[in-house]
């Protein structure tokens, strides 16, 4: 009986080793599954990335899309391109959109693995169209308040969390379940 146990134990250990070395990022995934990572630290980094994103796009809009502002936004190129396209569209119409985030409250942060996170944030924004041509930025519309809930999809790349996509909902809108399987392939 002892021989059986020893032989099977060796086979199990060999199998675990084989499974470990044949899966990419096995150690990171294991750490995540057993909870051996700095969840508070990563949560703080995710919150910081979202805060930076909001602050920098507000500045980017306000500057009328100055190219230097693009590099400071912690977002994927597709996201930056959409923002730049919106600003260009407004400039072509002689407008600039001045936006300012008044309040934000993080409702939930979920980690899918060590490099993918989803954050749901309630945000209050004020926005106003202004004349792009005049130095004094004459207002072209009344100041408008927008109360939204944003679901951010973040990925950790080069030790930095960046926003790879986001969904905008009105407050109390029903949110669809997160498509985790698809999200983990982004």
């Amino acid at each position, binding site marked *: 009986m002892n*021989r*059986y146990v020893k*032989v*099977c134990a*060796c*086979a*199990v250990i*060999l*199998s*675990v080793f*084989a*499974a*470990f070395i*044949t*899966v990419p*990022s*096995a150690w990171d*995934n*294991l750490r995540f*599954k057993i909870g051996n990572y700095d969840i508070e630290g990563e949560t703080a980094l995710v919150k910081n990335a979202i805060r930076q994103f909001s602050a920098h*796009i507000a500045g980017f809009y306000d500057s009328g899309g100055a190219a230097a502002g693009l590099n400071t936004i912690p977002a994927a190129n597709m996201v930056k391109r*959409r*923002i730049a*396209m*919106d600003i260009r*569209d407004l400039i072509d*119409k002689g407008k600039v959109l001045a*936006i300012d985030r008044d309040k934000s409250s993080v409702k939930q942060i979920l980690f*899918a*693995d060590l490099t*993918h996170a989803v954050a749901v944030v309630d*945000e209050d*924004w004020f*926005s106003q169209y202004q004349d792009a041509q005049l130095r004094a930025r004459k207002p072209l519309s009344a100041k408008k308040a*927008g109360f*939204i809930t*944003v679901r951010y999809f973040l990925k950790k790349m080069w030790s930095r969390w960046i926003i790879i996509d986001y*969904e*905008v*909902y*009105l407050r109390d*809108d*029903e949110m*669809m379940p997160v498509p985790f*399987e698809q999200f*983990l*392939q982004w």
Partner: protein
Amino acid sequence: MVKLKNLIISSEALAACAAFIVTYVCLGLSGIFSSVPSSLMKILHKPPALIGLLFLLVIIFVRLLIFAKARSTAGQNGVSGILFYMGIILTIIGILVSSQMRFEGRIYLPEGESFSGDARGYIEGSVYAGKRSFPPAMKLHMTNISPFFRGGRFGSGSIASELLYTGVGNKYEKKMKINSAVPVLADGVFFRIRSFGYAPFYRLTDSSGKLLDEAYPMLRLFPPGAEDSFRVEKQPYTFYMKYYPDRAVIRDKKIPIPEQGKGGLYKLRVARNLEVVFNGYVVPNEIYQVDSTYISFEDLRKWAEIEIVKDYGIFMIAPGLLMIFVSILLGWRRKTNVPKEVFGKESVEENR
């Protein structure tokens, strides 16, 4: 040579092999080392599992030879035992064949459209192909998709569809029905519907009526109440949509539901970066202003996501498992008298 043979037929070797394979499969299915758990077939195709199965194949084959010889010497046929060993051998060979020959891929196919079997037509990232596999040569034409929504708390449903199928060398088309519940087999290829959705045709224009864009975006709008989104090239908007074929199932009544029209309608929310510029129910064939553009939805097509699997290994694995099951039944019924000493110490002493 005798020592090697004794090692191969020893119970410890069999137990070690089985423990290795079972542990490896369990670790793969649990997903403890990966972000997403793998399917059973993909785990069995990985090199460590294949090496374990090869060792197991050798052990079982040698055991089969010894068992068959012992039974014939004893004047007994040992059908259930032989069937058992052969079932395992066939199953393992099937897995080895599958690892090289399996082709698996998914396609989107709307009603009225065809798929020519071209490898580029498969959804990016959905193809899983063994080294010696190739996409099945065939043509599919989707004629009809019928979703069935059971409603209720879990919003479950099923989908059935009718296709025109043309295989390799076939000079005729044949009608084929596939569904989301059970794979359907045709010319050695399995077909099954994995998901379903709607493709509403939109037309986006500017204030002067100039066409900005039009298309059929394929959206996962099933079951009713499911939301999906699409973006338009060169426009800063994101369009979030829901589709209700039957207005009676609409739960969110905070926004007024239009009375015009009788059929289904859409729930549309449009965001321009971080601002919601439109939120409401829209009726097909009506034009709605969204910020500085105008949008209408004029046609609706259904589409299905079809999984296509071609795997010759399955045709060995299935009979192999059946043989194992039948042998267990036979053995249980007949209470077989397989001499337990065949692989024990007595035979080891005899062979020395």
